[in-house]
């Protein structure tokens, strides 16, 4: 089975890269062939993900049994053994939906790439490399591998903005690159901190080793080390990049001290939050979006931003719970500030794409807020339900925003391709000129506005409702953002689509949308409705078990380590270990 997963997941991740090599072999003049090959490759990747996750061929993805809470499709083979780096991948309820989202959006973005007409071959190669990187980020479970994929995403994106972008593309590309690189460097520091602090031979880890999917050799080494340590011998520490093992180390042992966790959390969080992006490190986003070509904007908004949210959920909280607990208020406030600030800034924009970009900042604030509400404390008797709801809301918001933001950038691109400007005040009357396009636009923009029945609503309302038990004030502020959102979206719709006549240049070019454009917009619109009407069927049931497990684990950790406040945390950690031993003893008795 493990080899099957190895083949399946590797195929999903590296198929675009292989296709990129094939595109390299296509003659430069044959532009259409490159595009078709690229589109075909993305379709095959989508088909593969569907086969893997939704049909019996690959599993299918289990969301019902208890096993659903853990990793599925896991394989791990040594890659650079001297540093204990493994080629280690898997999917669970957090990553699977994001992988599916990536596959879908890439197909649509590849479909939208027909509007790119210069250096098509190079564009296609970079596009496919980008897809490999993104899929890899969501599937990698080895921190080093994760970092490699993370950086793989960076370079193609830099060139895609810098070469195929608008007039200020170089500025935007360099800004994007430097911002993200700064985040990566912080992440790298944290990775090394965690790596050198970790030790798999800690006996406290013994009950949890099975959940970490270590390669056999490492597993044996770790167990031998534990035995030796139990016998009083000194053993050289066995470091690890394994994300699952690091999570167990962070939660179950004292290896990562409070201080170290705090700093590692902060470094990782800043790294991810730049990508997300959150105020005040968001200013690369409007520029990158404005300059990037339409399909790249779609990918940037729909997927790249989600890598930040995914990182926070997968890495920051499980590995550094001390940091997460201590900084919960900081994280939540940051989320709320992003929501408010992004909405206000969007209200003042005059450029269509910048408005959509700021709406992304505002909407991603919900993700930060949802992930941050650490509301399972002694005061709530460690009731995890509301926190769970917040995290699932953040997950939904990521997927929902992925769909709606890709749609919004696509729609902006459609009209930009025709009239070559984005001045909001120089539009108007598109309703009469392009009726189908207008219908799709209003649908997708209303999804972003958070209209019930469309995907934007569920994520927002779940997050907002979950915040009440954490902080009344933050909850009320986050609810008021709804007014601002309605204001900027409706005002934009009025200026662009409604009104008597088109006020800008190139009015003759406003032809009705083509079949290809309608298909892309139509798929996105259909997805917004399906996710908005059946959130449980399409998303939440897949996410539920994994998030519930993670939140419950962290609540348990809170109860034993962080609270009650009058007892020192080390004491609590000892209690936790003692409890584990009791459990073990119980398990071994029969």
């Amino acid at each position, binding site marked *: 089975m493990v080899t099957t997963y190895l083949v399946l997941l590797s195929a999903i991740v590296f198929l675009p890269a292989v296709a990129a090599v094939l595109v390299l072999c296509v003659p430069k003049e044959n532009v259409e062939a490159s595009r078709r090959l690229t589109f075909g490759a993305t379709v095959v990747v989508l088909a593969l993900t569907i086969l893997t996750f939704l049909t019996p061929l690959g599993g299918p993805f289990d969301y019902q049994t208890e096993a659903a809470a853990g990793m599925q499709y896991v394989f791990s083979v040594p890659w650079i053994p001297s540093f204990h780096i493994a080629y280690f991948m898997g999917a669970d309820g957090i990553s699977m939906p994001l992988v599916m989202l990536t596959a879908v959006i890439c197909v649509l973005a590849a479909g939208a790439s027909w509007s790119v007409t210069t250096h098509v071959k190079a564009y296609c190669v970079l596009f496919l490399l980008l897809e490999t990187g993104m899929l890899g980020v969501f599937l990698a479970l080895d921190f080093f591998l994760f970092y490699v994929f993370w950086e793989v995403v960076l370079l193609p994106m830099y060139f895609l903005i810098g070469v195929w972008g608008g007039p200020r593309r170089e500025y935007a590309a360099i*800004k994007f690159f*430097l911002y993200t690189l700064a985040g990566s460097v912080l992440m790298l520091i944290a990775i090394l901190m965690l790596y050198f602090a970790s030790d798999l031979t800690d006996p406290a880890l013994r009950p949890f080793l099975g959940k970490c999917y270590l390669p056999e050799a490492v597993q044996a080494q770790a167990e031998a080390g534990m035995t030796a340590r139990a016998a009083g011998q000194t053993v050289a520490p066995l470091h690890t990049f394994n994300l699952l093992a690091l999570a167990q180390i962070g939660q179950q042992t004292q290896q990562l001290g409070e201080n170290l966790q705090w700093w590692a959390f902060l470094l990782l969080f800043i790294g991810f939050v730049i990508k997300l992006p959150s105020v005040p490190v968001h*200013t690369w986003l*409007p520029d990158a979006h404005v300059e990037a070509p339409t399909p790249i904007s779609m990918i940037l908004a729909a997927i790249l931003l989600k890598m930040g949210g995914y990182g926070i959920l997968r890495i920051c909280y499980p590995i550094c719970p001390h940091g997460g607990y201590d900084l919960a208020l900081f994280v939540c406030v940051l989320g709320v500030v992003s929501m408010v600030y992004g909405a*206000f*800034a*969007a*209200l*003042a924009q005059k450029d269509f794409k910048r408005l959509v970009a700021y709406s992304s900042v505002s909407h991603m604030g919900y993700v930060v807020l949802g992930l941050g509400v650490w509301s399972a*404390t*002694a*005061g*709530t*008797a*460690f*009731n*995890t*339900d*509301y926190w*769970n*709801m917040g995290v*699932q809301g953040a997950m939904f918001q990521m997927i929902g925003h992925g769909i709606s933001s890709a749609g919004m950038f696509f729609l902006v691109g459609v009209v930009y391709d025709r009239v070559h400007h984005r001045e909001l005040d120089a539009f108007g009357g598109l*309703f*009469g000129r392009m009726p189908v396009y207008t219908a799709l636009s209003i649908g997708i923009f209303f999804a972003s506005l958070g*209209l*019930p*029945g469309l995907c934007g*609503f*569920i994520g927002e309302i*779940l997050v*907002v*409702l979950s*915040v*009440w*038990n954490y902080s009344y004030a933050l*909850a009320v502020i986050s*609810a*008021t953002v*709804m007014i601002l959102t*309605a*204001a900027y979206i*409706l*005002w934009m719709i*009025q200026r662009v689509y*409604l*009104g*008597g*006549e088109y006020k800008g240049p190139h009015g003759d070019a406003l032809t009705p949308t083509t079949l290809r454009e309608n298909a892309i917009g139509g798929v996105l619109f259909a997805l917004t409705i399906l996710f908005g009407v059946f*959130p*449980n069927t399409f998303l*939440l049931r897949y996410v539920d078990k994994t998030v*519930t497990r993670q939140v419950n684990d962290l609540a348990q950790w809170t*109860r*034993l380590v962080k*609270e*009650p*406040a*009058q007892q020192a945390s080390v004491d609590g950690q000892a*209690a936790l270990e003692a*409890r584990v031993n009791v459990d073990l003893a119980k398990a071994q008795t029969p």
Partner: protein
Amino acid sequence: MEPSALPWLLGLATLLPLASFFFLLLFGPRLGKAWGDGAYVATGAIAAAGVLSAISLLIWLGHHFPGGEPEAHAAQAVSAPAPHTGAADAAVGSDGHAAASGPSYAGDYYLLGQFGKLRLSIGYYIDSLTICMFCLVTVIATCIHFYAMGYMHDEQREVTDREVTLRDGTYLTRRGRYVRFFQYLSLFSFSMLGLVLAGNIFMVFVFWELVGICSYFLIGFYIERPSACCAANKAFIVNRVGDVGMIVGLMALWGGLGTFAFGDLTHIDADGARRHEPGIFSLVRPVPGGPLRVPDGMVRLSAHREVAQVVDGLDRQADQAEIERAIAARVPQWRDGGQEGGPDGGPGGGPSPRGYALLVVAGIGIFCGCVGKSAQFPLHVWLPDAMEGPTPVSALVHSATMVAAGVYLVGRFFPVFTPEVLLVIALVGCLTLFMAATIAITATDIKRVLAYSTVSQLGYMMLALGVGGWVAGLLHLITHAFFKSLLFLCSGSVIHAVHTNDMRLMGGLRKKMPITAYTMLIGCLAIAGISVPFVIGLSGYYSKDRVLEQAYSFMMHADNRNFLASLLFYTAAGGAMITAFYMFRMWYLTFVGEPRDADRYAHAHESPRVMTVPLMILAVFAVAVAWSPPGGLGRWSGLSVVNLLEQSRPPHTLADVASPGLGMTWPNEHFAHEPSQHATIVVPVTWLATLTAWAGIALATVIYALGYIQADEVRRYFSRTHRFLLNKWWFDELYALAFIRPVQAVARLSAALDRRLLDGLIDGVARWTNRLAKVWDRVADSLIVDGSLVGFATSIYRFGVRLQRVQTGRLRDYVVYVAAGALAIFVAISFFRGFYWGG
């Protein structure tokens, strides 16, 4: 049929218009005459929904016949032994009826999400109020669909919109949007029915927003007109302001109760166990029919410090069940323990319990949503502007159904409102009814008169609910829906004939369009509440009298001898006079006197049959909807809307509810109707209502029909008041100053902050890095690196030159060097050996 069919019948009735919407969305433009250009689809769907609603009503009557039930006029309602409802068990859950209320069926259709024990779902809650609302909505909507076929027929062809002038000076010409209009109507019907069917407050919110967006589409139907677009935006955004309050209410409920369901539910968990989940109504009134009690969840939320102490005090190995038990044991103590600040009371007479504030927040929050949707002060500003939409929309959405949804929700949520919230509701309603009525006096746009009249009447309903008149408020909702939609359709008929909304350009039209004129007169009489006192009257007589009676008995209660209670009653009574005055002013200006615009008068004509028949149907309802059959027909005598509504009356609203905190008491609604109170309450109030109505009509007649008093003179005499009213109490200007401009300023500020500060910072860092690099290039590269390299080379060279002198070529010197070198190495080695291993 069994009542178990109700969820499916009503669900189907809800989905039919949705199907029509999608059908028209996809195929609408291609449908030809045979489909009535799509209108037949939409009309057929809503008519079928009406038939299904009627069937549901019959099923309901078959199982729960109104009247006759012993508790109907008891002074103190004790929960009737709930009739057997039969287990309407479906795959989706099970139906039961809340022990705490009258016969009702609650269940889930499907799940939206589950988070531990928290469930969000799409469900239903069906009681007689639901059935009434279904019938009301479908009947009115069907009439209006038919009417719209006539009213909107211009849209079947190319349209020239004379209100939109293009840049080249011509009028806009566009394709007709007939299909689109019916498509929106269908979507609206779906949303409205869904709102009424909703089984939980979350689902109410979902459909609440959907009706809002339909309203947005319909107000902005003439998208080319800037005024229509702005009105649509205003409507949606103002409603969102209310919705934020509603979300805060939802949060308080969700955080405290962990459920949104109205009624009790039983559902099957993933592990196959049946779980009983009490709904909101049972949680706030745990004793069936008993008084309001702060639910456990809210107590715990409010006492979170104490909860933390309890949890801390427990053994760490304690599992979740143990913690829950320990907390549950303390909850009653916390609830009764009260808060610091004294023994101010809560319901039930005890000191204000923990979490009571949350209950108030929940109530006020939900009411905020109702304020937005029902256009109550201070969020009423959107409704008059909403008249930019086509008139059938004003009739359906902005008078009869959607705006009444706020009142419906207050009625539905009534069991959760604390006395404090009820007082707020009453005051808001009172203020609204007065303010809107005064503005209606000066309006010259026929639809705006009706719009302000709607706002005012909605204020009456809120006032009624706020003073405890549950049936009074909802009955007024129903009667108002009929006569106001009638009035709007009549005004539409007039507008259709003379192509203007301005009453100053009308006059004398009754000769040209008698059906419209006299049906509208019926509407005016109904809204004024004209009757033969104590014998028979138009529908408005019954409902408005009930409202006034309840306000009067509220005022007369021994605990309420204060300014507020008197204000509520006298405003309502005075408002009745203003209502009669402005309605008849409108009628006279439109239909009586000399035509003031001969050209328009000459072209005026009675509307086609498809428009006048709905008028007549609605006129019948406006006259008779509140009638009850005469006595002596056995159980059929009980068949009236009032008795039907009584079945859904939330329990305990038939008890006097005292609020020690406020020092006021909410009298039970039946108190006013008790035979013993006939002389002290019913008789004076009825005479008062009749007199005020006639006084208003008389005043309007004197001024506008007979011309004994010149309206212009009155206007000059009260010029300052007139200007104040004409400018709608300056609300729009106030809001622009207080909210819109500050928000725009903050928006510009944050955009500038981004550009200047954050980007400036980043760019500045980049620039300085660049400069530093250049300096570094000069200093470090040229001076230090290159300099040091060159210097190093030079010094090596010099050193080499100096070293030349050692090369003497004399053997003696070399031997000395070798010996000295060997000695030095020896010393060094022994030194380091000592350093490392010496110890």
